């Protein structure tokens, strides 16, 4: 006979109590695993959705007056296109998705339009390859804003003469309800040619990464690389990104903590009931010479066993749940929902520990229980 055998025999005898404890732990672990597994997809999805809000950093020539810029929607002054390469190839800057543009308000076919030359996005040298933001427009093509296309009867595949340059309409942009509707996008080099500004740009758009740095730090980093520029934060977009991320993290954190607390209380309560049910047995064991450490080991060992088994069952159930439900919830990133095997080892250690802590008080009650009282109670 050993304590372990005694423990296993008791578990076999009181199956319902054991299964209820196991169920509580497995449920908590399953929820935790499912949330974390799906949370990884959720993070990617949130990032993508947030990215769709657009760039949150503008790099403008120093001489651009921001008041004029917001009023005219284009920057006064310009800077070398080479800045884009320099920025992208400088490591350690907390931003990515660099898009260089040259933008001017011009009159075309009797209308004021925003002519925007755009170069396909460049990824920062130290960033992972991600889905690009912004447009990738080939030379000789253009995208026409909804309002212009609608009023001038321009359709896809039409050829237009843009200030002396023939361009094919590759896309009529969907109605945005903003100044986007009076914009014509073309390749940066085509627009430079039309405007007679070869090798020049007047805006670099970027996305500040959510890696913990402040905007002031980012401004300092960029100014060091691109002299004669000013860095402007598009605060509403940045704030929305940051607040959404924080909200999701807080929400998940609260759910996990609440479930853990409820399940720990449940395991503790079941342990307490187990102690009450076994009062006479504790008295007998005491009479036979079992010490406090033996009694504590019986109850804490039982809790640890429930925790260990609960971790394994919960991991399997949680993973199955995430793989089943995840693709339904995260439609954009369902392929990223993978079993989080890296959670298994910590769970195998932490769950028995939590279950043991939850049963600590009942175990102490068992240890301090007066055996004489139960043995003389009959």
């Amino acid at each position, binding site marked *: *006979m050993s304590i372990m055998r005694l423990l296993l025999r008791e578990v076999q005898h009181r199956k319902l109590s054991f299964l209820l404890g196991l169920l509580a732990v497995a449920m908590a672990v399953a929820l935790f695993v499912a949330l974390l597994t799906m949370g990884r997809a959720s993070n990617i999805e949130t990032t993508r959705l947030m990215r769709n809000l657009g760039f949150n950093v503008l790099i403008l020539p120093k001489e651009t007056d921001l008041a004029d810029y917001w009023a005219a929607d284009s920057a006064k002054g310009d800077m070398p296109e080479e800045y884009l390469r320099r920025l992208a190839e400088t490591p350690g800057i907390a931003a990515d998705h660099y898009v260089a543009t040259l933008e001017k308000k011009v009159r075309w076919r009797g209308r004021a339009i925003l002519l925007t030359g755009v170069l396909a996005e460049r990824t920062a040298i130290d960033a992972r390859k991600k889905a690009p933001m912004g447009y990738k427009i080939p030379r000789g093509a253009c995208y026409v804003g909804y309002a212009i296309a609608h009023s001038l009867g321009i359709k896809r595949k039409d050829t237009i003469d843009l200030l002396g340059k023939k361009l094919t309409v590759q896309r009529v942009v969907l109605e945005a309800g903003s100044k986007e509707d009076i914009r014509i996008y073309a390749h940066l080099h085509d627009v430079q040619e039309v405007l007679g500004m070869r090798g020049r740009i007047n805006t670099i758009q970027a996305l500040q990464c959510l890696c913990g740095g402040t905007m002031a730090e980012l401004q300092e980093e960029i100014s060091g690389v691109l002299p004669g520029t000013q860095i402007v934060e598009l605060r509403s977009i940045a704030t929305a990104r940051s607040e959404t991320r924080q909200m999701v993290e807080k929400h998940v954190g609260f759910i996990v903590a609440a479930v853990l607390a409820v399940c720990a209380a449940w395991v503790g309560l079941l342990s307490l009931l187990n102690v009450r049910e076994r009062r006479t047995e504790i*008295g007998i064991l005491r009479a036979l*010479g079992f010490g406090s450490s033996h009694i504590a080991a019986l109850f804490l060992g039982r809790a640890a066993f429930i925790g260990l088994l609960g971790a394994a069952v919960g991991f399997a159930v949680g993973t199955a749940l995430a793989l089943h439900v995840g693709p339904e919830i995260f439609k954009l990133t369902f392929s990223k929902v993978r079993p989080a095997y890296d959670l298994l080892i910590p769970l195998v250690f932490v769950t028995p520990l939590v279950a043991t802590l939850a049963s600590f008080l009942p175990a102490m009650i068992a240890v301090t229980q007066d055996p004489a009282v139960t*043995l003389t109670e009959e």
Partner: protein
Amino acid sequence: MIQLENVSQVYRSRRGEVRALDEVSLTVRNSEFVVVKGPSGSGKSTLLLTIAGMIRPTRGRVLVNDADIYHLSNRERARFRAQNVGFVFQSYHLVPYLSALENVLLPTMLVSPDARRHTACQLLNHFGIGQRLAHKPAELSTGERQRTAVARALSNRPWLLLADEPTGNLDPETGLQIIEYLAEFHRQGGTVVLVTHERWAEEYAERTISIRHGRIEEGS
């Protein structure tokens, strides 16, 4: 030798003070068979548990072979019980989820890690339960349960056997059988303190003690 010197056991509750033992002085010599009798609630069970080192007396000393067992730490007192004392209860108090054999092996895990399986089997055979080693207490008759409990009490080869009304739930024939086992232990040199209401059991004892209202009235 067991010596109780002016031992009092007082329980305090909301309804007042209960003196379970009141200035009890008693000596039990080694290899003696002592019967303790008295009405319900007179303090007989409390006396046994006090001798076993399970209830610290409110006053007085309990000496076993000249050593005060209540001067030992809890761990040492538990070890003292495991090595020296066998307990038999009226309600058998077998662990319900262990087989008869495992119940008998239970005390041996504290003393002899390489469990005395062979000895336990011999004991159970001797008590006529050799065919029921794997049976759980619920699958045994009341007589078999009590015989298993006696086997468990003897499995560690104690020198002191404390029996608290072991025949209380048994028919006279089985009860007699149990007392015979205790007498056999005594004949082999063991010390027995038996709490019982059965008059016939006194015939096996060398001495009978009467206890009433926590006081020994005769035979101390």
